[in-house]
């Protein structure tokens, strides 16, 4: 099930909210868990077993780690402390090996075997392994939980089903944000819900839904029209069309992904969970380092806290810092998908981060702020080309095409028409990815409060917006299923 489907909105979410708010508060977690398991099982009940198992492993290991730590509380001799540490470490390693092993098996086996097959002709056939939905997200959530217990930052969850609730919660289970256990640990047991929270959650959810249904899907359709799906199609593309198509893709990927995070954060807030922000207007970044502080924040902080800092971070010798960054960015790329282009994409950012660290940052600081913004946008834009094309042949062809090689010319009428047909969408998206909207909203509120003691007009608009956005999104979602059948027979 995806958030942007009619079944999810009008059956699943509707039933979920109604039951949640009408049932006695003591059963609310059970309601959430039941709904989450149905949500996850919807994509294939067999993968539910995997999720249940991975949670079981993490729950068990965390309890053992805590038990070992408690046995060792108080003053210990050096030897005993060492023994306790090795006990704790044993359970941590077991958990990491099992979780990462399963992730690697489902996500990367095909990639590795495919490469072996390509280079050495062995194995003869590469088996097809279906990726269980959300595995990249909930594996990381569970890892963060066990590591945090190991570090003594949080206490282990004694109830299996509550940990399962955390990992499977349908708000964030399949597409993030990667919520840390410590963020929601207290809220699992006790949540205060105010009308203000629910209203905020509803606003956030409907903005996310509209972002996805009205903007991201439309941008995606334009990108698909302009960008070739395979190398041979380059002959009917134009150079300007490729640049324009990539621009729409750049919008798609942000609007789509951040829309999911908005909806997750919104749905969480409706029932009292406060998830951390996952995006902070990344296309307003002033450098690549800044971009990664604003883009998929939950993933970059995960790699920072669980890979980069444990490796020594930047408090080690210079060559080690470079090594640590290389590891983090190769992993970041690889996490996005089991394909070389994602690794290249990660390393591409590594190069710019290194450049910034040793050279560019100082230059950028001296120049007007606009230069930094343009530089970051251009680098990110070009990065999306690597991200878009999994087939390296097509990737090369498109890069060539963008330089005018192998296309049907610089531009043609068709490209011009696509541009005209989507001109307002393009302008609107340019505005939507900036802080302009929220700035305007704040400004209007300030003006309203200045002119009226109670700004009823603003309140009415704010109250109406979510319902209107929901209606418009519903239309767009039905519209997306428009699939006329050109008959020829009756």
């Amino acid at each position, binding site marked *: 099930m995806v958030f942007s489907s009619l079944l999810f909105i009008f059956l699943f979410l509707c039933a979920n909210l109604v039951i949640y708010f009408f049932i006695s508060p003591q059963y609310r977690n059970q309601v959430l868990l039941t709904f989450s398991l149905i949500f996850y099982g919807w994509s294939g009940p067999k993968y539910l077993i995997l999720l249940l198992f991975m949670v079981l492993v993490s729950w068990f290991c965390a309890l053992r780690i805590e038990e070992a730590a408690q046995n060792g509380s108080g003053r210990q001799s050096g030897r005993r402390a060492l023994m306790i540490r090795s006990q704790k470490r044993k359970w941590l390693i077991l958990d990491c090996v099992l979780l990462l092993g399963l992730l690697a098996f489902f996500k990367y086996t095909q990639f590795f075997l495919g490469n072996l097959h390509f280079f050495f002709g062995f194995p003869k056939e590469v088996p097809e392994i279906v990726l269980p939905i959300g595995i990249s997200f909930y594996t990381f959530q569970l890892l963060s939980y066990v590591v945090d217990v190991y570090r003594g930052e949080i206490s282990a969850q004694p109830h299996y089903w509550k940990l399962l609730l955390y990992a499977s919660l349908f708000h964030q289970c399949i597409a993030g944000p990667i919520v840390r256990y410590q963020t929601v640990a207290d809220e699992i047991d006790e949540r205060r819900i105010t009308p203000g929270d629910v209203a905020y959650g509803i606003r956030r959810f409907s903005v996310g839904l509209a972002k996805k249904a009205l903007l991201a899907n*439309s941008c995606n359709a334009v990108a698909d029209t302009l960008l070739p799906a395979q190398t041979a199609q380059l002959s009917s593309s134009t150079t300007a069309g490729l640049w324009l198509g990539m621009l729409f893709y750049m919008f798609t990927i942000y609007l789509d992904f951040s829309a999911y995070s908005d909806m997750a954060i919104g749905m969480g807030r409706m029932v009292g969970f406060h998830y951390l922000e996952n995006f902070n207007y990344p296309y307003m970044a002033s450098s690549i380092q800044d971009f990664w502080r604003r883009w998929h924040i939950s993933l970059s902080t995960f790699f920072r806290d669980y890979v980069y800092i444990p490796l020594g971070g930047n408090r080690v010798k210079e060559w080690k810092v470079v090594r640590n960054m290389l590891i983090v960015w190769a992993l970041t790329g690889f996490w996005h998908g089991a394909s070389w282009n994602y690794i290249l994409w990660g390393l591409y950012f590594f190069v710019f981060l290194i450049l910034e660290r040793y050279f560019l940052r100082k230059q950028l600081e001296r120049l007007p702020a606009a230069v930094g913004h343009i530089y970051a946008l251009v680098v990110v834009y070009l990065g999306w080309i690597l991200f878009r094309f999994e087939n390296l042949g097509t990737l090369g062809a498109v890069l060539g095409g963008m330089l005018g090689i192998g296309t049907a010319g610089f531009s043609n009428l068709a490209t011009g028409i696509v541009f005209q047909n989507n001109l307002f969408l393009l302008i609107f998206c340019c505005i939507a990815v900036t802080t302009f909207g929220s700035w305007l909203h704040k400004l209007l509120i300030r003006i309203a409060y200045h002119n009226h003691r109670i700004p009823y007009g603003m309140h009415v608009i704010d109250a109406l917006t979510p319902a209107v956005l929901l*209606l418009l999104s519903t239309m767009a979602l039905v*519209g997306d299923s428009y699939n006329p059948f050109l008959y020829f027979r009756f």
Partner: protein
Amino acid sequence: MTAKQEIKKRRQTAHLFHRIQIILFMAVLLIGGIIGLLIPIRPEISEQENRKLTEFPDFTFSGFLNGDYFSGISTWYADTYPFRDTLMAGSQAINRLHGLQTTQLIGTNTNIKDEIPEIPDSPAPAPTDPPAEETTTPKPAATEKESVSVPDGGTAIEDAIRDKIQNNLYIANGAAYSIFYFNKEASNTYADAMSSAADRLKGTTDVYSILLPDSTGAILDKSVQDAMGCSSEQDAIAYTYYLMNENVKTVPVFDTLREHRNEYIFFRTDHHWTQLGAYYAYRQWAAVKGVESHDKDSFQTKSFSGFLGSYYQSTNSSELQANADTVETWIPNGTNKMSYTMTDGTTRDWYVINDVSNYQKHALYSCFIAGDNPYSVIKNPKIKDGSSCVVVKESYGNAFVPWLVDHYQTIYVLDFRYYDGNFVSFAKEKKANDLIFINAISLAGSSAVAKRIAGLVQ
């Protein structure tokens, strides 16, 4: 009011409006939820899209385990959501805000476009393996093809054709045009199939190939076609004809249609040609066959207005809606009766030109020869010379066949999409004088169609 009271009042108002917001949102969500549960009012077909909507999936254990069953339910829920057509209209109104849409390009993907090879100045090449004497033995190449399986007809080929027509539409001045991309391999396959049929029927049945342009090639300015990046339909037809051997009688229709481009020879809202367009092609065919064509003014006419065809259906464009077509027909003199056999094998009597005044507005092109059926027969009682012909066609052929009625005693019409028999054997069995293949280049030049036809002449 003190500052403290004012803050309190503001906070109370904010809380009140939070509640209103929640109630409004939940109301929409609940109403939407209840409407979604009203299963009896869910539509089963969409008139606007002219298709049967997704059915509730059948339960299978494997489908349950791998999630197919549930994804089937999701699709069913969305596809048959009540008031679908109204919501869709809303969605299209939103989409119109995306930009300036007086001219539009509607497409889902860029395409593969082959260069059309130059035709050498020398005459058409000799067949690679010319039969030394009259023989019906197939050429070796054709024998090798025996092992090739024939691509499925029916839905599979309908889908391929639909994609061809539906994708990449250019809408300007109230009419839609499909963008054509040349596919060299398909042209080769198609031309080989024509040559093979002609070789095997040599001496018994004349094989005619009529390749016609669509409205893009026939009507649109060359400069616009080039600017859109279309392949030249004129060159593609010429090249495909060039590949056929001399046993195939090719009918040059492109130039004639282009000369008449200012007349109503193609529909604006549909991909087909009009019967007038087909008339000009018919005159060319008569010239190649060496018979005199009948003047269109000697026929009775009937017209049906308000036609909103395939282009309108696939785009729902308001530009097209404002430019509905009229289907003009000329009724054959010899007979207006025919019979056709449906896919399920049942045969019905019908009319060559049927009165479709009461049909839905998207279906008016079906006035010609009962629309698309695997097999149809027209017997002209006014001709008693035993002459017969076989027409192998897709829907473009429908407007053409009525012009042939007054030239043969019997006309057999086979639609290659639904007819699974062999065309050559059929022509032999019926001792047909002529076997006419009539296709739009945009369809003949697509691999699915070319392979299907090639498979059925093997």
